[in-house]
């Protein structure tokens, strides 16, 4: 358990380090242009899909997740963000067998940490907050315990529907590759608020959150997005 925590921490700090590199690189690009440009009056709404999820679904065959995003630009380089998706997990071990499915929704804000280089500059590096809700449905679980002296026992645990709530700290960047088309990533530290709902049997994977048995989860998304401006 401690090794898992260390691995998660390692991954989180690596992500922060990589983010800092991105910060530094952006600062280098703008070093010749020291004039801060005011935010344009244009509004932007952007829809996107996390393209890393289909890849990860192929890597981890026992879990699946699909994620989408929607954000809207507010004054002072703040973005109102809504994210959602669905997924689940299949646990098919010798001693434990069940499936879980869930949908989720997250809402929050991102705040750009960069000044614009020119009026149509929509690239940004951000930190943000989210509140997430997942509606999780677990099937009946079949378990087996193995005892070297008394032999195996088997049984089942009735399926359950629960709602899980969590909070997130986010950071990341977005780059406009072509006019209106963005790519970028978000790293997330997630903190489960409703730990008690998973006490009986936490799902192996909750789409939008991560491992149900962890009270803290680290994750990332890689988005492709399209922006509409007016």
């Amino acid at each position, binding site marked *: 358990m401690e090794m898992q925590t260390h691995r998660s921490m390692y991954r989180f700090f690596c992500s922060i380090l990589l983010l800092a590199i991105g910060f530094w690189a952006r600062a280098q690009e703008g070093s010749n242009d020291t004039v801060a440009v005011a935010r344009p009056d244009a509004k932007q709404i952007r829809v996107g899909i996390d393209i890393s999820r289909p890849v990860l679904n192929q890597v981890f065959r026992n879990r699946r997740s699909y994620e989408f995003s929607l954000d809207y630009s507010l004054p002072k380089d703040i973005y109102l963000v809504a994210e959602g998706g669905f997924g689940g997990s299949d646990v098919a071990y010798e001693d434990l067998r069940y499936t879980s499915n869930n949908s989720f929704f997250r809402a929050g804000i991102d705040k750009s940490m960069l000044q614009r280089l020119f009026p149509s500059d929509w690239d940004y590096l951000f930190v943000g907050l989210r509140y997430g809700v997942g509606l999780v449905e677990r099937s009946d679980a079949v*378990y087996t315990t193995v005892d070297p002296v008394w032999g195996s026992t088997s049984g089942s645990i009735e399926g359950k529907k629960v709602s899980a709530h969590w909070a997130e700290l986010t950071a990341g960047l977005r*780059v406009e590759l072509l006019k209106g088309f963005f790519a970028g990533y978000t790293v997330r530290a997630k903190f489960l608020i409703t730990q008690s709902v998973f006490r009986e049997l936490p799902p192996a994977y909750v789409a939008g959150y991560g491992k149900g*048995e962890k009270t803290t989860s680290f994750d990332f998304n890689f988005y492709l997005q399209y922006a509409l401006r007016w």
Partner: protein
Amino acid sequence: MTKLILLILVSCVMCMVACEQERDPCLQPQNVYLRARSMKNVGDTTIADSLLPAPRWIAVDSGVVILFAPKTAAFNLPLNPHADSARFSLQPDSAVLSFDTVVFFYERQLHFLSNACGFTYYFSLQNVRFTQHHIDSVLLKNDEVNGNANTPEHVQVFL
């Protein structure tokens, strides 16, 4: 430059995730044991470990013999997850055919360890009964058998 860095970042993160395993290894015991200690009275108020010469505990209903090293006073005994009691025969010296029977009565609780380790049973001891060929008395010290090693032994067996 920014695009290149973006590509590198994504590659790094993907590599980190790709190293993750399908099922995490189970890093905790999957069975819990009742911890018993053989004791003896030394004087009126003092007790000490009673090192048994060549102890054997026999799980009567499964027929499994649990051997312990000579001159041992601490014993880990598995309770029966199929029933609300577990019956053991204690042979203090395997060279001598003389036994005591000890029956532990308890309540079982199914307990989730983790997705890596699955489920196990915890037990709440209710009562202990025993014969008195070698045993003088049995003291129930801690009734929660839950794998927590930082608690006192569950029973003291005075011989």
